[in-house]
């Protein structure tokens, strides 16, 4: 028996209370997982139990609850370390999400380093949160932002990447999986090419960690960023992985409590990694919820999840291709987790409303990737994105609802 045959999607679904909801009288078909995924009872209960019996501030008190909460928070960090196979636990910095992780690197790593004439290299398919922080730091330092183009299939032009990569490049920032196209980028190759010129690489893994096993040591990436809420965990918690030798040289990003060893008005001595980057009371429940989410994913197995989702993606792609007047945006060889599409007759905004009335939740809009929309000359797309709990029957409902929509508008 292979993984797919053993995969029990019904029992997984039973772990997610919200999947029993009805929307406009129809069973919920939740296909907006790339925006935010839902939560299994194990995550909800971990947070509930914390607040009911184990909560306190951390790293501060000598009392029992504070010790328990500190332990739970640090256990979550250990879980994250194991999940992405970091070398050591203090390379895992808790942040509020991918966005903050990237901003931290932009302000704390790049800003002190960059000067006029330097370059940051990103790609045309980045999420706004992997564009704007670099534009800001370029503005602040006089460095320049360079952009690797993409092809009509939605793949990176690697030839152009190697041309743009040069001695002026001080950092490469690239998405692992595109949230607008579903493209899985060849980040291992990108990292190897960059490292050949001693250029460090930040990987935006927001859309990758729910679908692809990640090993930061094998990849040898210098930074890896992701969010809890796309990984069945809570909002307001995310991770920045950074190599110890790089993180330890970076100045703090925020000032406050917990990030210092001692403060006097003359001089403040910064705390050790990762606390140097975790000023203020952190998102304790968020970290613990994220730990529970990762454990849940690990119990099912990311390999099995990926195989199931790949099946869904292939099925959805072939079903949608059969629909007249439907164009899939993003047809890369390697894709994960989602299908973006447009219809000749119907604007994405109307598709979204029509599908919502059928109980089908998808995302419509520019997906915070306006450069991608401009490249494909569409104002917006409709996007169905998958998670471990989606079923083939739900894809059928999606396709039927799209057909109904077309019927109504033609």
């Amino acid at each position: 028996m292979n993984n797919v045959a053993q995969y029990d999607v019904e029992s997984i679904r039973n772990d997610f209370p919200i999947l029993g909801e009805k929307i406009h009288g129809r069973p919920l078909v939740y296909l907006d997982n790339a925006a935010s995924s839902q939560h299994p009872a194990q995550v909800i209960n971990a947070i509930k139990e914390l607040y009911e019996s184990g909560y306190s501030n951390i790293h501060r008190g000598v009392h029992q609850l504070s010790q328990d909460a500190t332990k739970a928070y640090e256990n979550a960090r250990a879980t994250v370390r194991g999940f992405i196979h970091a070398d050591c636990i203090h390379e895992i910095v808790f942040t509020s999400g991918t966005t903050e992780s990237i901003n931290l690197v932009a302000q704390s790593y790049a800003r002190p380093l960059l000067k006029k004439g330097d370059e940051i290299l990103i790609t045309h398919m980045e999420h706004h949160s992997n564009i704007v922080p670099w534009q800001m730091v370029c503005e602040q330092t006089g460095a320049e932002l360079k952009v690797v183009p993409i092809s009509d299939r939605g793949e990176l032009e690697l030839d152009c990447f190697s041309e743009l990569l040069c001695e002026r490049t001080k950092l490469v920032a690239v998405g692992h999986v595109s949230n607008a196209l579903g493209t899985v980028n060849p980040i291992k190759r990108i990292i190897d090419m960059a490292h050949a010129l001693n250029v460090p690489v930040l990987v935006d893994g927001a859309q990758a960690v729910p679908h692809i096993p990640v090993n930061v040591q094998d990849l040898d990436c210098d930074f890896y960023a992701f969010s809890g809420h796309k990984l069945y965990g809570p909002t307001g918690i995310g991770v920045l992985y950074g190599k110890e030798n790089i993180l330890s040289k970076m100045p703090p990003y925020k000032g406050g409590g917990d990030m210092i060893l001692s403060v006097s008005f003359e001089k403040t001595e910064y705390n050790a990694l990762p606390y140097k980057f975790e000023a203020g009371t952190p998102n304790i429940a968020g970290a613990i919820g994220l730990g529970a989410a990762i454990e849940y994913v690990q119990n099912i197995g990311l390999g099995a999840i990926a195989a199931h989702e790949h099946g869904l993606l292939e099925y959805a792609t072939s079903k949608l291709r059969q629909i007249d007047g439907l164009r899939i945006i993003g047809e890369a060889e390697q894709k994960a987790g989602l299908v973006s599409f447009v219809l000749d007759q119907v604007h994405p905004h109307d598709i979204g409303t029509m599908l919502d009335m059928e109980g089908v939740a998808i995302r419509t809009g520019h997906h915070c990737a306006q450069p991608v929309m401009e490249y494909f000359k569409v104002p917006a797309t409709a996007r169905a994105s998958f998670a471990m709990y989606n079923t083939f029957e739900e894809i059928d409902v999606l396709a039927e609802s799209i057909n109904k929509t077309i019927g109504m508008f033609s």
Partner: protein
Amino acid sequence: MDNLRELYQEVILDHNKNKRNYRKIDNPDGFAHGVNPLCGDQIDVYLNLRDGVVADVSFDGHGCAICTSSASMMTVALKGKTEADAQALFESFHHALTDDEPHPEDVPLGKLNVLTGVKEFPVRVKCATLAWHTFDAALKKIQGEISTE
């Protein structure tokens, strides 16, 4: 489904497909560009006034069915109206979509009434009002230019 039929009435679908006054006006008296960043609706509104009356009004750009049909119906409704009547119609239309309070001063909406179903879909209200806000901006530009002369 009833709500949907209410939202996407035949008249609305017809205006979406067969847009009225969907064209540029060269050297218009007034012009404005409107954007709804949520769904990518973008429209341009062109406006010519003669003796305080809307002599010609048109639009182009692209948007969802609600945005497009609302723009199309707006141009039909506005032609021949005085500036004051046009502004009163904008305000009344806006109230009908966004406000539960009665506004005794509001004028009848006529054919624009078919768009009031949008009220049941709060995230779509901006689609229906975008053209009107854009028209209002174009008109205010003219008025601004006149008043500063």
